[in-house]
């Protein structure tokens, strides 16, 4: 499916942020759309819920090739592992008294970096927000944002799960 997306992408004129989803669907209908349609719809989390991943994700898809057919999946799993550790650390830090904002900022910086690497757009936005609260030493703001972040993170996981199927 990824391959088709690439292929499809280049032929697109009209692009949504995916770059191809819209047209793709229509085009596919012309071809063997009936067979493809269901899988495409489920394949494209962006299509369904735009904003969860951005172009960086597409970049990753582009990197995938015959030599490494599961590249995106591998990267995303690695991301889950690493971010789980960070989330846990941040949770713990938020429970500490007094709160070490510098440490939190550091964790979040790392988290932001990895989420932007895989193109997790919404998660990244929450990270930025969190870091701002951190700098302002706003505990409530931090905690609240972190909850939101975790929500976005979970949603992303769900969507990507569908994508990988």
């Amino acid at each position, binding site marked *: 499916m990824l391959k088709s997306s690439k292929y499809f992408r280049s032929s697109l004129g009209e692009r949504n942020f995916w770059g191809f989803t819209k047209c793709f669907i229509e085009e596919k209908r012309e071809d063997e759309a009936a067979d493809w349609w269901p899988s495409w719809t489920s394949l494209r989390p962006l299509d369904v819920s735009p904003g969860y991943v951005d172009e960086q994700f597409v*970049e990753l898809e582009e990197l995938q090739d015959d030599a490494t057919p599961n590249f995106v999946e591998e*990267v995303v799993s*690695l991301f889950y592992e*690493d971010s789980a550790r960070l989330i846990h650390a941040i949770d713990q830090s938020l429970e500490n008294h007094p709160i070490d904002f510098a440490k939190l900022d550091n964790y979040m*910086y*790392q988290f932001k*970096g*990895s989420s932007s*690497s895989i193109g997790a757009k919404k998660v990244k936005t929450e990270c930025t927000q969190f870091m701002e609260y951190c700098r302002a030493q706003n505990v409530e703001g931090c905690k609240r944002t972190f909850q939101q972040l975790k929500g976005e993170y979970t949603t992303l996981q769900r969507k990507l799960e569908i994508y990988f199927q």
Partner: protein
Amino acid sequence: MNLVASSSVSWKSNSNNSDRVEKNEFPAGLRVLVVDDDPTCLMILEKMLRNCHYEVTKSNRAEIALSMLRENRNGFDIVISDVHMPDMDGFKLLEHVGLEMDLPVIMMSADDSKDVVMKGVTHGACDYLIKPVRIEALKNIWQHVIRKKKHEWKDKDFEQSTNVEDGDQHQKPPEDVDYSSSANEGNWKSSKRRKEEEDETEERDDTSTLKKPRVVWSVELHQQFVQAVNQLGIDKAVPKKILELMNVPGLTRENVASHLQKYRLYLRRLSGVSQHQNGLNDSFMGHPEAAYGTMTSFSGLELQALAATGQLPAQSLATFQAAALGRSATKSAISMPLVDQRNLFSFENPKLRYPEGQQQLNNSNKQINLLHGIPTTMEPKQLADLHQSSQSFVPMNMQGNARMQQNNALLMHMSQQQQKQPSRGQMLNESNNGQVSRPPLSMSQPLSSNGIPAAILSRNGIVDNVRGPVYNPVSQASSMVDFSLNQTTELQNSFPLVSSNSGMSTLTSKRLIPEEVNSDIKGSRGFPVGYDIFEELHQQKSQDWGIQNVGSAFGASDHSSIPGTLDVSPSMLVQQGISSMKKNGQNGNSPMGEPQLNLFSGGNLLTVKAEQLPDTSYQSNFLLEQFGQDDLMSAILKQQESVGEVETEFGFDGYPPLDNLPV
């Protein structure tokens, strides 16, 4: 190279560049080292680079990456590193790579703020990528490799054309530099070991006409280089002389010249970082604490006190020099002030180490002023002597480094307040890595400006008396050196304490341990006194520095005794001790009592009774920083006069030997 299946040309091979360029594989095979603590990012980068047909090595730890680079100097063409890493700052890695291996380094970060990008530029990164990195950005990184090689060739060309010695070496056209030179560089680098000097020379001769092997600046080589530069003085360090001093076969003047250029940039950056008023911070950091500690104590009073210990003056000088040498004694920061910091740090000794404890050194200019005051009083001759001494110290420093380090911890503590460049310290620490062999460049220079300490020492008759080491500025250095060499244990103790203590303690008590010293001082005995004295004498500015010095001398813990400013640097400590001794009566502080001397060595050091030194002005000498140079001089002179007045219990008649000092 696997990726470039069809190409027989590789970055490592000796094949002609043109072949490679002609074939479309270029820039395939570029050997990239990627360093990033984020595993996701690392994996993505690796994949991207592989897709560009580069040869990728990845590492998630900067230390590992650095050791990989060191082991295989010619194994990589370019390094890509993240800025924020847990084990080592990306910029530090950048500096290391730039100095030691001279490879192009690309920094990357999710942080795109201007100051961070600027930092990358000032540290010499050849590019800065913002995460998330796109493959398009990576496709063009080969340009940095080519560019760098081109510049090297150009430098060599230039140098060669102007360098008669090089004779018939001629440069290949720049285009050919990159590929072929990398191959040659590999050869060059691998053989660039002392034992392989001959090979290197041969190789060089063979390839000189066609290719210029790239010199790999190993740690040892760089240390030699730094030593040579220090010896010559940063201002006078010309490639030719450095080359002669280094005496490394196979090394060309061009190699040295380009490395010197980089080194200067590095130093400049260091000095720029440490926006200390006096700009001494940088220099301070690296200076051996011992050296500085002693230096600061050069105030007239101190000298006298030192004289009592006998060791002190010489020691101070020694420490001073040692400090200049850039030992890791961050504590030296304190002592630095004594030396004309400006001069000292003009080079910015990059190798300075910050003692672990270095946290915000109070970086008060005042502290630095302390030193400033002193230098002015030095006579040119003395300065010259000092300079010489310092130079001789260089080797000493290295040996004493271990000791200094110990001292450093102590001094550092003391000088913490004074120094304000914690970052600098870190940087320095890193760069120093405890390498003794890297005396700060500033060493050679500063001494001249520090005339005062030397002057003081010379005036201090005590020097002669104590233990024997000669305390003239000139001789002091040498004696100090000997002293330090021979009396490692002693020095250790003494060093930490802002020089003065160290000198004293080591000399007299031989068992002066920083901890002990601190505890002795703890009573903050001298603090209030010293402080007061300074205040009295120098209305100009009761610098925290002075007080701080005092405070620090006595141990950080004692700072509380002196409200606020007691973070006196170690140098002050000595002074404090002395002043406290003298001040005994003056301040009305109890500390002044006899225990003052204990500061230096668990009490054994000097039995000088504080009461004996009623002369406050004497103490003011210690607060060098507080006074302007002129003031300092006058203070010192005054002290000297007053010294005579002081009871001779200490035997302080104009720095007479301290007979009654229990040694």
